[in-house]
Every structure is written in structure tokens, then in C-alpha cells.
């Protein structure tokens, strides 16, 4: 292993020689990091969507206090930075007796954040289902659960799929922020490598490429899923 081409100080100007060989040697680590990022995003999306569905129900609740509480939650999350939410959970919660490891804190912070946006998206989807259709479902004798699933949720999901897809990509990109508490994902993996060999620019440039490939790849995949899945359903609706 040759460690040539380190930055050379030349007057005020630094001659920097790119050393992408370093990146290539650690590339399997980066791929593992990319997998961790995708896993974190998918997990967060599942829980976040669940929070969103509950939130959308709470926003239409009979109890005023529940409606107000949901609105406060949404506004609080949407008008504060994700980084502050993350640090509040990771550093602040232990004073309340809730101690989380970095990975748990990261997942919780992303889910709490995503839940607020998902609530608004799901609510918009439910509003997209005409009231008369819900009443028709009830009149047909569907149980509340069946009515929710068949008449409200599935057509609503169809309506909100594009918004959820772009929210997923935004969450995947925003998840790089959890590297500040050393939760395991692509940026944190890279931070660890860079701390060892100081090739920051090459490594960060490479993972920017990986993030870009992930977001473009998922965009294409979601477009395909939208076409395959919902075009069939839309024939019935």
C-alpha cells in the first residue's frame, strides 16, 4: 500500500491530488452503508405511514382536544429543523428517563418527523375520497373496519402515492443528518473511514454519487410501481 499524494502545502495554495484508489478499497463499506440507509428509510417509512394514518384519523376525531393536539404536533414538527428534533430526542430525552442508543434515537426522530408530513398527506388522500362514497360503503353494510380499508384507504393510497414516494426520497436524503449522533447509515460509515485516512473530498463526493443513484433509482422504481399497481386498481374505481 502506497500512501502517496497527500495534500502538499504550496505557499497559500494547496495542491490536492485526487486519490480515488482509497475509495475503491473501501467501496464494500460504502455499499454496506448504503444498505443501512435504505433499511433505515424503509423502516421509518413504514412506521411514519402508520403514524400518518393514526394522525389523519385523530385530526377528524370527535374530540376537539385530539384534533388540537394533532394540529400542534404537525405545526411543531414542520416548523422546526430535523437536526434540532434529533438532538432533543437523543440528548434531551435521557433527562426524562428515556435513554435511547443512537440508532433508536435516529429511527424515532425520523418517524416523528415523517409522521407529521404523512398525516397531512394521508388526510389530503382521505379528503380526496368523496363523502358520498364513504356513506355508500356504510349503506352497503360494510363494517367500519372494512369501510376504512376498502372504501377509504386503498383509493386514498392511490391518490397519495406520488406524494409519499417523494417524501420517502426526502427522508432518505435527510437521514444523512443522523450521522451527527453516529447512528449507522451511509454518511456515518463514511465519517468513520474519513477520520482514518483524511480523504474527505473523494469519499464525500463518492457518496453524493451513491445518494444521487439511490434517489434516481427509487424515483424510477416508484414510477414503475405506480404504473403497474394503481393502473390496475383505477380500472375498478
Amino acid at each position, binding site marked *: 500500500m502506497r500512501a502517496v499524494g497527500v495534500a502538499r502545502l504550496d505557499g497559500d495554495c*494547496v495542491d490536492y491530488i485526487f486519490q480515488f484508489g482509497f475509495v475503491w478499497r473501501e467501496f464494500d463499506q460504502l455499499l454496506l452503508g448504503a444498505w443501512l440507509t435504505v433499511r433505515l428509510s424503509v423502516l421509518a417509512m413504514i412506521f411514519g405511514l402508520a403514524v400518518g394514518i393514526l394522525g389523519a384519523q385523530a385530526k377528524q376525531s370527535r374530540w376537539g382536544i385530539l384534533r388540537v393536539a394533532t394540529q400542534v404536533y404537525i405545526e411543531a414538527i414542520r416548523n422546526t*429543523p430535523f*437536526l434540532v428534533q434529533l*438532538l432533543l430526542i437523543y*440528548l*434531551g430525552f435521557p433527562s426524562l428517563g428515556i435513554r435511547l442508543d443512537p440508532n433508536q434515537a435516529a429511527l424515532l426522530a425520523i418517524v416523528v418527523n415523517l409522521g407529521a408530513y404523512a398525516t397531512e398527506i394521508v388526510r389530503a388522500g382521505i379528503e380526496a375520497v368523496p363523502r358520498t362514497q364513504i356513506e355508500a360503503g356504510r349503506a352497503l353494510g360494510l363494517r367500519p373496519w372494512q369501510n376504512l380499508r376498502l372504501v377509504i384507504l386503498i383509493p386514498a393510497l392511490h391518490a397519495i402515492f406520488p406524494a409519499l414516494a417523494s417524501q420517502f426520497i426526502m427522508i432518505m436524503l435527510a437521514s444523512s443528518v443522523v450521522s451527527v449522533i453516529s447512528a449507522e447509515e451511509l454518511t456515518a460509515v463514511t465519517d468513520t473511514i474519513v477520520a482514518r485516512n483524511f480523504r474527505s473530498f473523494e469519499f464525500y463526493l463518492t457518496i453524493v454519487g451513491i*445518494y*444521487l443513484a439511490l434517489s434516481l433509482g427509487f424515483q424510477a422504481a416508484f414510477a414503475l410501481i405506480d404504473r403497474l399497481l394503481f393502473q390496475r386498481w383505477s380500472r375498478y374505481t
Partner: protein
Amino acid sequence: MIREFSTAELWFLVLAVRWTVLLTLIAFTFGGLAGFAIAILRIARSRVSQLVAIVYIKVFQGTPLLLQLYLVYFGANLIGLRPDPWVSAAMGLTFYASAFLAEVWRGCLQAIPAGQWDAARALGLSYPRQLRLVIMPQAFKIAIPPTVGIMVQLLKGTSLASIIGFTELTRAAQMVNNATFRPLTVYAIVAILYFALCWPLSLLGQHMERRLNLKHLQVVKLQA
């Protein structure tokens, strides 16, 4: 030694708000200028300029803001500059803002019916004048609500500048927390300060959007 969290610390946090606001305004101003240029490139008839604009927007919207800041910060070395948190944060957020503003404004410009372009051309206006006198005044109105939304997003995004060492509100919080070790108090106050900045903007955006929709509805009714 652990300090008590007192009004001095609170005041320190409140004063740090100005750097967050200043950074937001700088990034918004330069990002707006660059974003406008890119939006124009994006709607131009030349395929090449469209492609350049699309790639620019895709790259900055498809990568994390944190890493854009890292690249600007560590990349300063490559062009012989000392990495400076101020310059890096302002530049990184400018790139980020320009891509989002370009995409939103492109949508607004393209929302203007093609007939308006034809009419302007029929009046003998040059392309810049078609844009400036006919298209932009109409696009301007529909552009305001989403632009306010992006400003909120940018304001929240400035918190990431703390990671490359720019002393704004979030970094001030870290400093106070290191001295007082009261993370819950400190970050709760910081969250409230961000909320106080962002919420009025969000409400303003929603209000203008509703007014725009009402006006639009009236126009539709009049036409019907």
C-alpha cells in the same frame, strides 16, 4: 465546571438567531438570483440549456444538503481557499436554494398558458420582453406561496451549517449545552426559537395560497 442555565445563556441563544436569519437571507438572495437564471434556462427552447438546468436541479435535489455543505467545505481546499464556515455555509445553502427555487419557478412560468406567449409574440415583443412584460407578472403571483414555503425549508436547513462549524442557533445551543449540560432545556428553547421564526412564515404562505385560490375561483366563476 458546569454553569447554571440563566438569563445570560438564554440571551446568548436569542442573539444567535440573527446569524440564522442572516444566513437564510444571504442564501435566499443569491439562491434566488441563481435559481431565476436556472429557471430561465429550464424553459428556454434550446435542448442543451434545458438539459443543463435539469441536471443541475436533479443533482441538488437528489443529494443530501449535509453532503453538499461538506463538499463545499472540503472542496475549498481544492481551489486553494482555506475552508471557512461562513463562506461554505453561504455557498452550500445558495446552491441548495437555487435548485429548489428554480424548480418551483419553472412550474410557475410554465403554468402560464401558451396563448400568452403567442399573444406577446404577435405584439412584436422580443423574447426577453415577452418574458418580462407578459409572462413574469402573471407567474409572480402564483410563485409567492411556494417561494415562502422554500424560505421556511431554507431557514430550517441553515441548522445543518452548525455541523461544519458555522455559529448560528443550533451551534449556539451546542455551546450552551456543553457549558450547562441542560440538553432538554437548551434544545427545547432552540426549537421554540426556530418555531417563532418559521411559523409566521408558514402561516403567511398558507394565507396567500388561500387568497390566491379564492381569486382563482372567482375568475373561474366569472368565466362560467
